């Protein structure tokens, strides 16, 4: 017997409804089980995890880099305001340990106001280039820059050598061997901007200048040994990504919200952030012009890496310099550095994004006030004030920008350091 036509239609409709309900249930099931990642996305996520960070690279230019006695000495020097022109500025003045070793202001304030934003310290032992423009090629060379800058520590080379002899002789000599004789040397002299101190330095015989510079370089090496111990602790993102890739269920400590996961997907995908902010430190250790505007305050023209690379090559404290402990084949970053080209103009170092949410204001001179404004900058991709921006507009929606920001906020955790190293000794 043929079924009535109506019954057929009802059966067909029922089947359709059931199928669509089943598809809906499957889709919902897939959603609750977490997003799916392609093999390439999984690989990218894996490279971002702190678990992918290898051991600290050796610093052959600093033979005491891994000497705990040097680190303990460096810890004391880092906090010592006697290493300044007015007795009030230490490294910790701007690199505040409780604030990710930065100060929260657009332009750092030492004895005067600098032209740049204070950079954090954690993980910098992995960086081939230090400072926003990479004008130093090691942590110890970096540490020496601010000490002789008139607007930072504002002191001079002989002053620092005398300070070591007066306050740190035994600890210094245990690490570096006997201090040279400093008697008769001026209290204040050095190859610095101050004309009187510079003239006094010029009157010191070259051999004694070298003695003083050696002590000065060793101050940097001790501070670097201390800074080498400051690292990253796992963040919520790390816990999430490790569980995600291992197929483990997320916990209250590891779970990301749907928006944060969507932000991660944008970060490694359509928003292209991962092009430069790659690897477990979220930096390619390179220099990019991203169209960051000039600061609103009047500052000398800043050409970024174009000047920085020349300063790095010319520095007496470079890996290839006389105060370095490196062998001739050790300084490859310096030997193969790109030194010319339009790409260097107003290019600045890709900063690590670990802890980024706690480090407003942003960019090399604190030009951008909030994380939301940073995301908006990269979305909008304005033309560079000089040189050429590498950015292209992303055309994200407001929701997507918020998701990216939410993701960036999952990258924070207190810095990791040996006991006592975050406090005044």
């Amino acid at each position, binding site marked *: 017997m043929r079924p009535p036509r109506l019954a057929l239609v009802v059966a067909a409709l029922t089947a359709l409804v059931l199928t669509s309900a089943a598809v809906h249930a499957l889709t919902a099931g897939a959603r609750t089980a977490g997003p799916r990642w392609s093999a390439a996305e999984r690989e990218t996520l894996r490279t971002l995890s702190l678990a992918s960070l290898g051991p600290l690279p050796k610093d052959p230019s600093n033979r005491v880099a891994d000497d705990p006695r040097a680190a303990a000495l460096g810890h004391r020097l880092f906090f010592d305001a006697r290493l300044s022109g007015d007795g009030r500025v230490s490294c910790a003045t701007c690199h505040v340990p409780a604030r990710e070793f930065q100060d929260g202001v657009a332009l750092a304030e030492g004895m005067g106001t600098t032209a740049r934003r204070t950079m954090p310290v954690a993980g910098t032992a992995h960086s081939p280039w230090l400072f926003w423009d990479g004008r130093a090629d090691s942590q110890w060379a970096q540490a020496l820059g601010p000490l002789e800058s008139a607007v930072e520590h504002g002191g001079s080379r002989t002053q620092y050598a005398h300070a070591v002899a007066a306050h740190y002789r035994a600890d210094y000599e245990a690490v570096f061997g006997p201090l040279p004789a400093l008697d008769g040397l001026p209290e204040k002299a050095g190859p610095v901007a101050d004309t009187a101190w510079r003239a006094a330095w010029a009157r010191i015989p070259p051999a004694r200048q070298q003695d003083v510079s050696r002590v000065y370089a060793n101050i940097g090496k001790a501070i670097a040994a201390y800074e080498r111990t400051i690292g990253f602790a796992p963040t919520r993102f790390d816990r999430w990504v490790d569980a995600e890739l291992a197929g483990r269920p997320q916990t209250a400590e590891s779970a990301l919200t749907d928006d944060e996961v969507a932000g991660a997907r944008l970060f490694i995908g359509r928003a292209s952030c991962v092009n430069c902010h790659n690897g477990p430190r979220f930096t390619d250790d390179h220099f990019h012009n991203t169209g960051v505007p000039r600061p609103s305050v009047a500052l000398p023209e800043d050409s970024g890496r174009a000047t920085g690379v020349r300063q790095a090559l010319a520095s007496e404290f470079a890996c290839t310099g006389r105060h370095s402990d490196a062998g001739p084949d050790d300084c490859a970053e310096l030997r193969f550095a790109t030194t010319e080209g339009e*790409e260097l103009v107003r290019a600045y170092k890709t900063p690590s994004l670990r802890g980024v949410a706690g480090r407003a204001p942003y960019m090399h001179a604190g030009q951008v006030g909030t994380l939301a404004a940073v995301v908006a900058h990269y979305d909008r991709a304005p033309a560079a004030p000089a040189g050429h921006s590498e950015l292209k507009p992303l055309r994200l929606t407001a929701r997507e920008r918020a998701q990216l920001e939410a993701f960036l906020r999952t990258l924070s955790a207190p810095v990791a350091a040996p006991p006592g190293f975050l406090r005044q000794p």
Partner: protein
Amino acid sequence: MSHFARFARAVAGMAAGALLSGCMLFARPPKDLDYSRTRASAGGAYRATIVPQGDSIPRNRLHRWTLHLETAAGAPVDSATVAVDGGMPQHGHGLPTKPRVTRHVGNGDHVVDGMKFNMGGWWVVTFRVAAASGTDSVVFNLKL
């Protein structure tokens, strides 16, 4: 305007927007790229082979390549002047470092130091070779 026409216009607009926007930054490389590690030079004068140290190409780390050069007839080329260049065609930037040939080790092999690639994607590396058979360039595509 019909719904379809409006829909079609919206799709066309989105496609144009995608082409004009930062999509270039995450565009897939052209499909027909030759990723061979042995390639002929553009003018056919040389054949070049690259051998990255450790075989796989690391990200964000200086490393060394060996560049093997021979003539089209297969004779090793030892006394070549080689210039290294490269970059990411879809990003419009060059190599992050300035690699160069640091040693000629014989049998057509040249040690290239200072290679570094600081991001994932499609890279090209060009060797401009000047030797007895003339000046010619050979281009390698890399997918990182």
